[in-house]
């Protein structure tokens, strides 16, 4: 395969868009609320599986199953948050990662979720849409690129989420979140219901994870549990740290850079097995993170003052 293969890079674009949406939710929690959410992938799998099961088992149209899945995922976020959001930051992180693993093992072992076979056949409506969109794109000479409709849909969603989050962050609501990140006791002393704001932040992150999960499901054509292991969340953290603390724009740039880099490694002619080059991916991510924390801890677009003043 040539490095100029269009389908390949469009595939990278789709994956980076998915990571972008996923990590916007992390940024809302970590960068703007001070919630160390380590279970973001759990919300993504709940949303994706809910969508898949509503279509396959309940026969819902995809266009209805998707918003329903978002609501289910938000409800899950609230459910997880209710008993845990009063915990200190590090304990909250531990509980959320446990949550995402519980979800994964349940889906792996429960008959209703298809076990290790997963869920298949939820994307018929999407295929119809994609065929229609490809037909329209053919009219302007872009019909050959199979994944182009998905790429456009992912990136339109990503930019929409980005705009919405930036608007929220500049609102009085976003100001309260930031204050909670800085000092939640002082925020409470000014009459802010810290717990309610944290729940909202977690619920919104779960919704974003579900949007990412929807596109992931459309991209891979079937859902299986090992797609949703914690390394997905940690890759999201790598994107976040690379892009920058408390910067939504940085998330988008970080997702594109990290995905392009890790996928682009395939073009290096290395005498490695596919398993080995898969591991190399993580070695490189690790090295980037170490390098960043040494030379640019605020990430590419993070505010240095904002980070240092917190310390």
């Amino acid at each position, binding site marked *: 395969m040539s490095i100029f293969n269009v389908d390949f890079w469009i595939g990278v674009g789709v994956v980076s868009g998915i990571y972008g949406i996923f990590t916007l939710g992390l940024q809302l929690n970590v960068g703007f609320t001070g919630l160390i959410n380590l279970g973001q992938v759990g919300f993504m799998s709940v949303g994706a599986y809910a969508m898949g099961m509503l279509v396959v088992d309940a026969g819902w149209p995809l266009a209805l199953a998707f918003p329903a899945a978002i609501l289910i995922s938000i409800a899950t976020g609230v459910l997880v948050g209710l008993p845990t959001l009063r915990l200190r930051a590090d304990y909250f992180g531990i509980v959320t990662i446990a949550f995402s693993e519980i979800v994964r093992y349940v889906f792996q072992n429960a008959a209703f979720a298809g076990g290790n076979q997963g869920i298949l056949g939820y994307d018929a409506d999407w295929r119809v849409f994609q065929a229609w969109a490809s037909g329209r794109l053919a009219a302007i000479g872009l019909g050959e690129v199979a994944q182009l409709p998905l790429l456009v849909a992912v990136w339109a969603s990503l930019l929409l989420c980005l705009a919405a989050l930036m608007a*929220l962050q500049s*609102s*009085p*609501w976003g*100001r*309260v979140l*930031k*204050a909670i*990140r*800085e*000092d939640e*006791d*002082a*925020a*409470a*002393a*000014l*009459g*802010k*219901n*810290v717990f309610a704001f944290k729940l*909202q932040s977690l619920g919104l992150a779960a919704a974003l994870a579900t949007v990412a999960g929807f596109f992931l499901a459309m991209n891979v054509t079937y859902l299986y549990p090992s797609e949703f292991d914690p390394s997905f969340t940690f890759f999201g953290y790598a994107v976040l740290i690379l892009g920058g603390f408390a910067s939504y724009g940085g998330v988008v740039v970080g997702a594109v850079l990290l995905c392009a880099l890790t996928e682009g490694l395939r073009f290096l002619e290395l005498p490695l097995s596919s398993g080995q080059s898969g591991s190399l991916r993580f070695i490189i991510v690790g090295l980037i993170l170490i390098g960043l924390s040494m030379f640019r801890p605020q990430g590419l677009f993070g*505010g240095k*003052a*904002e*980070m240092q*003043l*917190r310390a």
Partner: protein
Amino acid sequence: MTTTREAGEAILAIEAVTKRFGGLRAVDDASFAVERGSITALIGPNGAGKTTLLDLISGYDRPDSGAVRFEGRRIDGLAVHRVARRGVVRTFQLTRVFAAMSVRDNMLLAAQRHPGEGLHRLAFGRGSARRAEEAARERAERLMRGFALESKADDYAGALSGGQRKLLEFARALMTGPRLVLLDEPMAGVNRALGAKLLDEVERLRREEGMTFLFIEHDIDVVMRRADRVVVMAEGAVVADGPPAIVRRDPRVIDAYLGRKGDAA
């Protein structure tokens, strides 16, 4: 009854409050009242239970027994933000500003009942959110001018000097529109001129707006000059409660507190 705002009425009542930490009675059957429109000082040696008592009033902790009433209604056991919404605001011994936010945002955050802080309102009621924000900005600018913080409005609060942080924390507390302000050592870490300015402002607010203040302070001269009532605590208990001139002659007070400092009159 139209006497709810009459001076002499208790705005805050501490009724037989006890708080234990393990075997220690940090607050031991304490009772006293704070009159509306008064400046009441809470003094006592280190470990007397003053800050614990402030925590019990503001909701950071709940008493093991006894009651705290604000304007006649019990507030002990309420969540911190609910106490604040009733009109009781506090400052901290070590100032707590939101360091990585601008001074102006620190102020705006203290606006109460701001519709822009509700997600549903941001989606379906932008007009009311915008009007509230404008009103808050105006109020914040006025307060920042009053405390000479207006030139720092766009700076990170974390970049302020210790004294300026103290002013910001006080201005921010006032931004909530409180009826009772609890100050935990407002003079600590502040130079005398700035401290005096802060207390001048306290006196003005009491005089012009009928605000009530309860403050913890170690500087006896300040307490004697500024407070109209002094509550003295020692080992968790209230040992004296009255006007400064009388309290400073109380032998129990001299024994428990003033005598140790060697500066009793």
